[in-house]
């Protein structure tokens, strides 16, 4: 009878980007069971948010996460606007989409390059990161920062684009797209990538439904719950994102979903800039926020992000609560990991695009 060996990984480990403690039971080479312990970066940000006023919370929410930083203030302002019953101008809504889709491209490409790194294909990783640098340049040129773009504000956006800036974004996207096509082809067809991702970390459709997973993790298993399509917000009802879905539920499927979303995001940015309506970018400098409660949702790069806000007529929220996509996707690792080889654990872990800092807040 073979012996079961316990291997601890984390909470601080060179193979992990963020602190999490895995306890893995292996028999021979394959994983029998996995246990996960969280809570190493719980910082009580929800409590902090209730001590800050509505404008200070714009700054705070943007810092909950780094790769989906834009989605937090985006969803938060939608909740505030709902309570105040203010709908921003169409121009502001389109500009919100532009900022969000740029962020999605950058986030997905970062995750995909990490996949290349984990399967040991380092030239592919550097190539992906190099192409992603174009998106980072766009962010830096238009919003003045490579990570936190500070694009959203109450009742509108903080930035506007003129013709020169639109031309610049379109020019850079034209540079990016052929590179994306070329790299995508490698991820889809290269032998090494396929050998390490196909049939690895399978999340069956039924489990994806049962666990309520979101984002590319759900869509890789055939569950369509893209908030941009199911409950459109901002300008997504007019821009119509494509339904992107894969059925196999393995790491390869999730990779394919992310790449196809990168392509669709590029299309959406172009479409939004082409149809950009005229008008103000912000409606009121200091809107009155009455007492009330609201829930708003958006599709962050990793999946559904939800904000619940309750106000009592004062300058600070009475209660603010949010849930990030990784919070739901986490439990799916218990389904994906057992039965695979130990060397695949990091690849599978990366395939849900985990963000621990924002999960624990």
């Amino acid at each position, binding site marked *: 009878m073979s012996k079961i060996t316990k291997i601890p990984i984390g909470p601080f480990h060179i193979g992990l980007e963020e602190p999490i403690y895995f306890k893995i039971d292996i028999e021979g080479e394959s994983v029998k069971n996995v246990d996960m312990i969280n809570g190493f970066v719980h910082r009580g940000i929800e409590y902090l948010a209730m001590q800050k006023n509505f404008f200070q919370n714009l700054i705070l929410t943007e810092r909950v996460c780094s790769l989906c930083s834009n989605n937090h203030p985006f969803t938060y302002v939608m909740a505030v606007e709902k309570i105040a019953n203010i709908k921003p101008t169409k121009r502001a809504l389109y500009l919100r989409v532009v900022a969000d889709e740029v962020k999605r491209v950058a986030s997905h490409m970062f995750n995909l390059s990490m996949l290349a790194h984990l399967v040991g294909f380092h030239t592919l990783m550097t190539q992906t990161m190099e192409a992603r640098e174009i998106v980072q340049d766009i962010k830096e040129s238009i919003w003045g920062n490579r990570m936190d773009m500070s694009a959203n504000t109450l009742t509108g956006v903080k930035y506007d684009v003129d013709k020169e800036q639109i031309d610049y974004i379109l020019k850079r996207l034209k540079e990016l797209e052929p590179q994306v096509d070329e790299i995508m082809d490698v991820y889809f067809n290269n032998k090494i990538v396929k050998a390490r991702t196909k049939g690895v970390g399978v999340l069956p459709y039924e489990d994806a439904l049962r666990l309520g997973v979101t984002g590319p993790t759900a869509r890789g298993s055939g569950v369509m719950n893209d908030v941009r399509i199911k*409950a459109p917000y901002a300008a997504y009802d007019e821009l119509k994102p494509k339904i992107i879905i894969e059925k196999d539920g393995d790491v390869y499927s999730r990779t394919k979903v992310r790449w196809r979303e990168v392509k669709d995001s590029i299309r959406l940015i172009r479409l939004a800039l082409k149809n950009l309506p005229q008008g103000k970018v912000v409606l009121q400098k200091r809107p009155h926020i009455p007492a009330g409660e609201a*829930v708003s949702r958006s599709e962050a790069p990793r999946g559904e992000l939800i904000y619940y806000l309750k106000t009592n007529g004062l300058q600070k929220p009475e209660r603010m609560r949010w849930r990030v996509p990784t919070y739901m996707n986490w439990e799916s690792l218990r389904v994906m990991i057992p039965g695979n080889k130990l060397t695949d654990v990091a690849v599978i872990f990366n395939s849900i695009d985990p963000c621990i800092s924002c999960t624990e807040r």
Partner: protein
Amino acid sequence: MKETLKRKIIAEIKERLDKDKYDIKDELDLYGNIQIWLKLYDRKDILHIAQIVKDFGGRCVIISAYKKDDHHVLVYHLDIDGILLNVEVELFDNTVDSITPILKSADWTEREFKEMFGIKLLNHPNPKRLFLDESIAEGILGEYMPLSQAMNGAATCSMWEKIESERHKDEQNN
């Protein structure tokens, strides 16, 4: 289509709950998406609601807890094919039945309000701590807590000492 689904959900709720035990209203947000707001007067009815959501193939998105005067209030946010069902339940005895046996997607969020607010949870299949260490009391959100302690000792050497001591425990078990 969404309108038909909304009507079906509301009809199902009316069928399964007693007439005087709830308030229901539905609204459109600024972008035309449907949200249903339901207030339950009997906390046990949440189990019926969870079953309805399961029957429609829905999921639990999140549960928000907050303190109102001397008791806690829970707001369940449940999703049925893009329609958001928000269910408010006031907990006068600080106790609630777990919906995790019905909707697995509620697992984490129930454990979170249990440890953050100290709400008693009945029949949860896995009532382990989620984020906070066992040594930290439940209901911590209302208290002052130093960062190093909240981070499970990650900023000091205490966490390493704990892991080291538990490692040997594991070896003995084998």
